[in-house]
């Protein structure tokens, strides 16, 4: 039994300053198996994998390869031991070809023989069933092709153990299937694969065993065939979680905001959005799906008045009747009508909150205009801050603590909470649960449902299709800056959305009815 263990971690402990990222973690990997490492953000999965790939050095504990203790001090040491890691953020040189990237940093003859390298790469590619042209330049590749290059790079160097860090985060469902096929081929060839993820459905689909981490501690390893979504969530969170989105039927939806032939140019002069037309209804959550960078940001910003549009109009229908053309109005006018954008950027603090200011001051950024007096009214934001902290269970030492020092989830609650306090009639959120743990995510989902029940039109740009399908009433799919379809979230499947995301337009099988 023990001799087919290719990798073992014993009692790995790693501190960053005073924070314990890994606390006595044990892990074992068998030859020819796919092991999922599951855990919420901040549970220490990536730290553990970085220890295995030589980026961090553990403070305590040991790593055994094929039963022998080893010391891994650099990525090169890890390579030499047959461990290859594919990072979430690709490490590729854009102007080079796939083959050049694959051999980058390898020792060898001074003169390059690219034709031979390309041939070797082709052999690896066909062995595992990849789809990759070694001569293609990285800058011409899609995200999934770049990921393929990274995986081939690791295999080309003879890795026995592959670590994939959140590989499906950037893929469409179809690309994910293709990746899983390749992973099964690798497993059949006797390679061992560790996949880091927090998507439970994928864990159940691909892996043989699941190791669960929670808050830096090792919870346990289970056979995938004995696991369910509920049991894994419980291991991950430490308590039973109600995974119901709580979606209710929209109450008397009425058109609230509409785009007609909206076209927006990106800074380099291409169309970021082309002829976008849709209507969002009050009392409904409209999801926006798409591979990231397909116009989501531009769409929300154009509607909120942050980006000029080339042509087309955005029309707002106030609840009391009538209509207002938003195109050409400035941001503050649009905000005053109740059209509110809450964009959660990748770095969270980059847009929306000032890191060095406290919660109440950040709220004052929105309220300071409302007062009549020359001086800023600090009382109102203070009260609002107090109620946000209370209702959303924000963990903070005080209202004046710089938000930069709060954890990601708490920052996000403040950001979304502030926008909701303004009682919007149109609430646009982008990636509202990015980086949040499950409990916080559900708090945010419930907030969005509440806004929907209050009659607001909620527009939600999301990454996780399972969430969009469970939460939204209708889903608009963007591909290449165009609307490739608007579907009914109650009837659509993930695969159908996946096809639309790749730009395959046409009538989806379940067209959404446009309520009048």
């Amino acid at each position: 039994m023990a001799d087919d263990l290719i990798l073992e971690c014993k009692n790995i402990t790693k501190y960053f300053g005073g924070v314990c990222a890994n606390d006595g973690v044990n892990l074992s990997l068998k030859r020819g198996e796919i092991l999922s490492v599951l855990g919420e953000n901040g549970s220490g999965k990536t730290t553990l994998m970085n220890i295995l790939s030589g980026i961090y050095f553990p403070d305590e504990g040991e790593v055994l390869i094929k039963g022998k203790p080893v010391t891994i001090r650099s990525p090169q040491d890890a390579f030499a031991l047959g461990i290859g890691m594919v990072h979430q953020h690709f490490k590729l040189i854009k102007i080079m070809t796939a083959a050049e990237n694959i051999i980058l940093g390898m020792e060898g003859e001074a003169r390059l023989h690219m034709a031979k390298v390309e041939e070797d790469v082709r052999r690896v590619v066909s062995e595992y069933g990849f789809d990759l042209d070694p001569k293609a330049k990285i800058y011409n590749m899609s995200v999934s092709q770049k990921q393929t290059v990274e995986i081939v790079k690791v295999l080309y160097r003879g890795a026995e153990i592959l670590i994939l860090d959140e590989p499906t985060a950037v893929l469409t469902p179809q690309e994910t299937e293709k990746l899983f096929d390749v992973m099964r081929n690798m497993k059949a060839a006797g390679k061992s694969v560790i996949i880091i993820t927090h998507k439970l459905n994928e864990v159940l689909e691909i892996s043989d065993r699941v190791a669960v981490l929670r808050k830096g501690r090792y919870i346990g390893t289970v056979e995938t065939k004995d696991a369910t979504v509920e049991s894994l969530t419980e291991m991950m969170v430490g308590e039973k979680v109600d995974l119901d989105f709580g979606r209710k039927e929209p109450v008397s939806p009425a058109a609230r905001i509409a785009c007609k032939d909206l076209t927006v140019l990106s800074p380099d002069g291409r169309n970021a959005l082309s002829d976008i037309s849709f209507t969002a209804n009050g009392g409904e959550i409209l999801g926006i799906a798409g591979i990231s960078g397909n116009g989501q940001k531009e769409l929300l910003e154009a509607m909120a008045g942050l980006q000029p549009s080339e042509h087309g109009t955005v029309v707002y229908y106030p609840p009391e009747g009538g209509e207002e053309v938003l195109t050409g109005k400035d941001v503050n006018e649009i905000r005053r009508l109740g059209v509110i954008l809450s964009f959660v950027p990748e770095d969270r603090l980059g847009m929306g909150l000032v890191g060095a200011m406290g919660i109440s001051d950040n709220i004052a950024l929105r309220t300071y205009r409302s007062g009549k007096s020359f001086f800023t009214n600090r009382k109102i934001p203070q009260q609002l801050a107090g109620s946000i902290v209370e209702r959303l269970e924000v963990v903070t030492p005080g209202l004046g603590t710089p938000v930069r020092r709060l954890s990601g989830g708490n920052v996000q609650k403040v950001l979304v909470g502030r926008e909701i306090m303004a009682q919007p009639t149109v609430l646009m959120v982008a990636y509202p649960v990015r980086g949040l743990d499950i409990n916080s995510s559900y708090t945010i989902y419930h907030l969005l449902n509440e806004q929907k029940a209050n009659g607001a039109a909620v527009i939600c740009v999301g990454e996780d299709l399972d969430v969009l399908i469970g939460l939204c009433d209708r889903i608009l799919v963007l591909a290449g800056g165009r609307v490739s379809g608007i579907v009914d979230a109650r009837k659509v499947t993930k695969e159908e959305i996946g096809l639309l995301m790749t730009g395959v337009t046409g009538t989806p099988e379940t067209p959404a009815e446009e309520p009048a």
Partner: protein
Amino acid sequence: MTAIIAFLNAAIGQAIVILFGATGEILTEKSGNLNLGIPGIMYMGGISGLMGAFFYENASDSPNGVIGMLVSLLCALVVSALGGLLYCFLTVTLRANQNVVGLALTTFGVGFGNFFGGSISKLAGGVGQISVRTTAEVYRAPVPGLSGIPVIGEVLFSHGFMTYLGLLIAVIVTYVIKHTRKGLHLIAVGEDPSTADTAGISVTRYKYVATVTGATIAGLGGLYFVMEYLNGTWTNGSFGDRGWLAIAVVILALWKPTNAIWGSLLFGGLFVLDIYLPGLTRATKELVRVFPYIVTILVLIITSKRNKPENQPPESLGRAFFREER
């Protein structure tokens, strides 16, 4: 015909100075270092080569031209390498701003050249009195035999060895960048140092080696100017803007030294055009003199429009590399 041959020779004379500078700067920029100190380093290379030869010729009763050449070559190489090393220490090790360090180095280098140029002029007995003819003759010796061929020999083979060295270095640097493993790693360092670092390439070492080598190549341009173009003499300020033209040629050449050969010839030709264009008045002469600068501006406008990623400057150019916290 004679006028055309004279013009071509003058153009080549200008071009080689620019070519050395451009090749050195291309190698430097490929590592992500934007060394605007190149004009200063060329000054430093020129004056130190001249000083080496001057002191050797003064110290020896019957100076040997070949030894003078070796002494001046060594002095130029060492001093320009030190210039590159200083730049690297400040920008790579201490992570100072590359533009500021580069401009300071140029200001320093020009001052260094003029100061020592003035000093040895004084030693030689007055302004314009320095002359290292014995050494300069070795630098200026044409290719034996071939230079006797009419027209072709006069244009192509009547130059000193440094002309051919400059062309050879440009070809070698192109080859190294394009066809060797080291070249591939160098491109990676200049494009994305953190990726190169993850791949196990020593970013600091590549930046140092490329920048110091680049500086010595550029320094040879200054030496060529003093020895072959000025015939082993010195006048303060005569080097002019050639270093900046070299940096402009880097962009025109799309970071390929072999392209820099044509770019340098174009700039070299424009630089001396006013002397060889017949029928120019004083005023129109001044207009013609502006050509190299107009071309530089046009080049910058045109190149900023091109879209092919390979022809863009190295992506990390001008930025210091901080290895992420480990």
